[in-house]
């Protein structure tokens, strides 16, 4: 029986640019294992021992094809090769993995999402799953990125996002967080999910704790 730790083959369904530095990769795995919102897979090219972790963009309700957001690192050893794949090509995947950044309806009826740059990817899965599983839930989805061109499929998601662009807007600080989130900060059902570069996470975690948001309702996942 296939388990989450077995490598298996997946077919590239499509591969498109999603913003300046990311591609959207749709994969159809040979054997499908259910995933939860916030999880990731390891991806590698066939015959190559080198793998990287990529968050699943699709919510659990949409499990085939699986959507991944891949940030292109010009000097990277895996992302340029994933970017060069074409529909019909095969890649290898292992997962779904990760237990610490999984949102489920038991996490509460209110949601604060805080993303930095490429850190948007698992938050999109959480956001869609939240919207489908919590009727009349309350949520806020905050994205910080250098420019709009650095946000994954910005045109598609812009209406759902509250954005702060570091190239032109003031820094996302405590006052700004209070202004954006309002009484969600004091909502006992709210949990906060932060994903992005380590420096972004440190700042946002510190901000939330200083605003007396309960530490045990904060989760973070670092994109290094």
């Amino acid at each position, binding site marked *: 029986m296939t388990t989450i730790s077995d490598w298996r083959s997946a077919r590239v369904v499509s591969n498109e640019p999603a913003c300046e530095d990311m591609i959207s990769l749709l994969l159809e795995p040979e054997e499908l294992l259910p995933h939860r919102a916030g999880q990731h897979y390891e991806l590698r090219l066939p015959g190559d021992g080198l793998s990287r972790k990529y968050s699943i963009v699709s919510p659990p309700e949409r499990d085939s094809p699986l959507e991944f957001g891949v940030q292109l690192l010009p000097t990277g050893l895996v992302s340029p090769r994933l970017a060069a794949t074409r529909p019909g090509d095969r890649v290898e995947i292992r997962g779904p993995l990760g*237990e*610490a950044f999984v949102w489920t309806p038991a996490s509460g009826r209110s949601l604060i999402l805080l993303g930095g740059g490429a850190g948007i990817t698992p938050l999109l899965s959480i956001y869609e799953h939240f919207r489908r599983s919590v009727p009349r839930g309350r949520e806020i989805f905050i994205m910080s990125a250098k420019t709009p061109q650095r946000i994954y499929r910005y045109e598609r998601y812009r209406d759902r996002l509250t954005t702060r662009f570091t190239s032109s807007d003031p820094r996302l600080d405590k006052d700004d967080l209070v202004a954006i989130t309002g009484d969600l900060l004091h909502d006992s059902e709210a949990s906060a999910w*932060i994903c992005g570069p380590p420096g972004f*996470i440190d700042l946002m*975690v*510190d901000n939330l*704790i200083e605003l007396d948001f309960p*530490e*045990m309702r*904060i*989760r*973070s996942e670092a994109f290094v």
Partner: protein
Amino acid sequence: MFLKISEIVVYPVKSLAGNHHSEAEIVATGFRDDRGWMIVDEQGVFITQRQHPSMSLIHTEVLERALQLTLPGLQPVEIPTLDEGPGPRVEVWEQPCEAVDQGARAAELLSEYLGRPCRLVRMSSAFRRQIKAKYHNGDDASLGFSDSMPFLLTSQASLDDLNGRLTEPIEMDRFRPNLVVSGGAAFQEDGWKRIRIGETRFCVAKSCVRCEITTVDQSTGIKGIEPLETLGTYRAGPKGVLFGRHLVHEGRGTIRLGDPVEVLE
């Protein structure tokens, strides 16, 4: 309910066994001699139970001008304390510190025990390891070779709660606290911001994110999976599971067993 101090523990050498005291003096760096020494590899990087769980079996005692090391199965050895001398560049979590090498005898003993070349160092008396400014009130508190904060406080009620969820209860020593508070409700320390213990005030700076050292049975040096697995089910925070709170002292004083703990804020 009445809160009081039920354990006082000082760890002279980072990651070795701790010593219980009935009272302990607070100096600039926290409890006197707490994490005043540490073991480093050839590059000067700290070595802990994360790599060598059996370090928990090494006992120490601070003597007048020496540190006594007792390794399992061996007679105690006195290592004369050197306050001046060659200062290797050492680091704790990539933070450079000035230190004095404590000589060949300690290095030989510890290298033999751990099976890798290492040295014992003591923090230079002239060196002040700063605490991040956001965690204290601008007085002169600093710290020894501890990970990031001068004090760790844990709660007996919180341990009792955890033990109620574990198949095999564990001892408090896995959490390596300096201070244990008894009385009150489990995890009420989560909400504390400032406290007074006896005559000394403390800023409650942050929660402690627990590492794999808590999975080492301190009396056998054997590593398992608990309590991290169970803590993960109900004590997960932004960067890992939380148990205990870090304190920064806002003055000097002496803490004694039974001292009342007053929550100021």
